[in-house]
């Protein structure tokens, strides 16, 4: 709640009322494609957790870029994708709130099987041609890291080329157009046997960085607050199932996505010879988000002089309340205790 108070507090003490209102409201939640990054939500939906928590949620398909438009015009209450749109919208004075996490990390750096250069420090990337999947947050974090390490990322030391179609990027690597290609989690798995391997992850250089978040609209926050808490509670239960019962979860995800079991297992849990870099943690991870906001400023994608601070738009109280509820319900559950500890580290 402390974050929230800072938010509107000074201006309007009376508006704190919303924190105790809006139970049982209908929520419209935007999702993009059949991506299984939102595994906890899928699990909560399929196993009926949302209903059990009294949360009436409807999933609505929408393109990543358009979700935030819909959200800021109150056509969506929330979505589960994209930290970039949230930051860029906020930086331009729109109202959108991050209230939970979907994915932490998630970008892997791929190269040909024959690629044998050691990639330990930024220096090692000098002279490389790197293709990137444009919406990938990892590529932005990575670029900032290189920049901070003193490399010229505008062609001097490394060149970046953008792709909206991953396969195109990989084919380019195979043809020798690129040395590296930064893609999303599990692409490396798909490309095995196609002459491509994962040679590094962005996380190993730049540390934890946020990827997809749970975002909500101004209206949802102020009129459907308790419904959002219920949503988060169910989602946390979904996360627990995901963590603890892979054999229940994998068939659910296979069914949802229409992908093969091997792929789903690798993407969500990793295999013997493939590490999945993505972590579907629901923690809002306020600190990482604020850092990422600065990243976007540093690489020039949002106005460096913006008067809007992301500080005001990361709401941690919903997650906190939901986690408290679960700690109360299952005081002995180690997962909740772990999340509680992580919360302290990530958000304060």
């Amino acid at each position, binding site marked *: 709640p402390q974050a929230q108070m800072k938010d509107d507090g000074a201006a309007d003490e009376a508006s704190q009322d919303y924190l105790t209102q809006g139970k049982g409201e209908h929520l419209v939640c935007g999702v993009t*494609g059949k991506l299984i990054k939102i595994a906890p939500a899928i699990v909560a939906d399929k196993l009926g957790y949302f209903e059990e928590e009294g949360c009436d949620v409807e999933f*609505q*398909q929408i393109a990543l870029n358009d979700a935030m438009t819909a959200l800021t015009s109150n056509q969506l209450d929330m979505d589960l994708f994209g930290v970039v749109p949230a930051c860029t919208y906020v930086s331009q004075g729109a109202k959108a709130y991050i209230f939970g996490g979907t994915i932490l990390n998630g970008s892997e750096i791929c190269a040909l099987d024959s690629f044998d250069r050691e990639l330990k420090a930024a220096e090692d990337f000098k002279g490389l041609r790197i293709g990137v999947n444009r919406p990938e947050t990892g590529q932005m974090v990575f670029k900032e890291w290189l920049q901070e390490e003193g490399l010229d990322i505008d062609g001097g030391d490394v060149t970046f080329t953008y792709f909206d179609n991953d*396969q195109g990027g990989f*084919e380019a690597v195979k043809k020798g157009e690129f040395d590296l290609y930064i893609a999303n989690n599990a692409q490396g798995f798909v490309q095995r046997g196609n002459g491509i391997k994962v040679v590094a992850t962005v996380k190993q250089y730049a540390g934890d960085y946020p990827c997809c978040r749970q975002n909500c609209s101004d209206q949802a926050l102020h009129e459907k607050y308790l419904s959002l808490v219920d949503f988060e509670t169910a989602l946390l239960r979904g996360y627990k199932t995901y963590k603890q019962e892979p054999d229940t979860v994998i068939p659910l995800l296979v069914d949802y996505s*229409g992908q093969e079991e091997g792929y789903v297992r690798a993407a969500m849990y990793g295999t013997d010879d493939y590490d999945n870099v993505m972590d579907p943690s629901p923690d809002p991870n306020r600190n990482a988000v604020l850092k990422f906001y600065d990243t976007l400023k540093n690489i020039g994608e949002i106005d460096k002089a913006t008067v809007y601070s992301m500080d005001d738009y990361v709401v941690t109280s919903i997650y906190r309340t939901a986690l408290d509820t679960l700690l109360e319900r299952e005081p002995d559950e180690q997962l909740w205790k772990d999340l509680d500890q992580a919360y302290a580290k990530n958000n304060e």
Partner: protein
Amino acid sequence: MRRLFGKEFAFAHVLLASLVLVVTCMPNQRMVTVSYYPLLAGLAVIEVLYLLRLAALRRRGAFSTGPTDIVVLVWALFIAWDVCATKLDIAPTVIVPAPEAVFNVFFAQADVIGADIVSSVTLLVMGYVGGLALGVVLGIVCGWIPRLRAMFFPIANVLAPIPPTVFAPYLIVLLPTFRTASCFIILLGVFWPQFLNMVVRTSSLDAQLLDNARTLGVRTFTMITRIILPYVLPEVLKGLRVSLTTAFLMLTFAEMLGASSGIGYFISNANNYANYTNVVAGIIVCGVVVTVLSFATAWVQRRFTTWR
């Protein structure tokens, strides 16, 4: 008549036989986990369609090498595909999936694909018909009234080539549902060319026809409904096919926003996972749907062209 079942016909069937042999008997190099029966069923469907076509041609007494040539090409492609992908595994693994796997998709995901087709076709037809109707009506009105033409024709020329997809956010804000927004993207894609075309047609109306109408004391409303509309109708009907193509192009992008099913959605979703088995299956479904819709438009065209 005899040539209908001549050398070419035999050659097509020799090819088919080799194809079946390759599929069933040649050992796989690539790991394929699915059975080859769906593929064989697919080949059977193609063969049956081919024979039906030949029979239809024969009934009409028309001779054409077309179907046989096409089928020869198709079998040859299938042989090359199966040999390179499944049998010898010399094709790029991800982007050239095994034909067995592709055809298996049609069976394994028949219900999903069915729903996708229904969803896409509904969306497509709504956007297509809406775009056509708006394009024709507004085009005629703007073409006929010189002041409107002088104003909107240059504006339309600037707006038309801008990809409707960049307007997606605005459409979402302005329109009540995502489905209408998707629909509108298709509509815009069809609308602009139709509108421009109609303005040009209407403003270059045959002078003699115009004189004829003027001597009958025809006023604007009658002019538009009774003279210009029927006059441009054959043109509109002739353009149906091309507009359908444009509508289909837009479909893929339209289904990126707010669709939860549809062929375009199916393909872009598969693309996300680099699941080219599904992508290729989706493209084939595209082709089939387009062909069916093409036949439908051709029928409409024939049905409503009463004069030339």
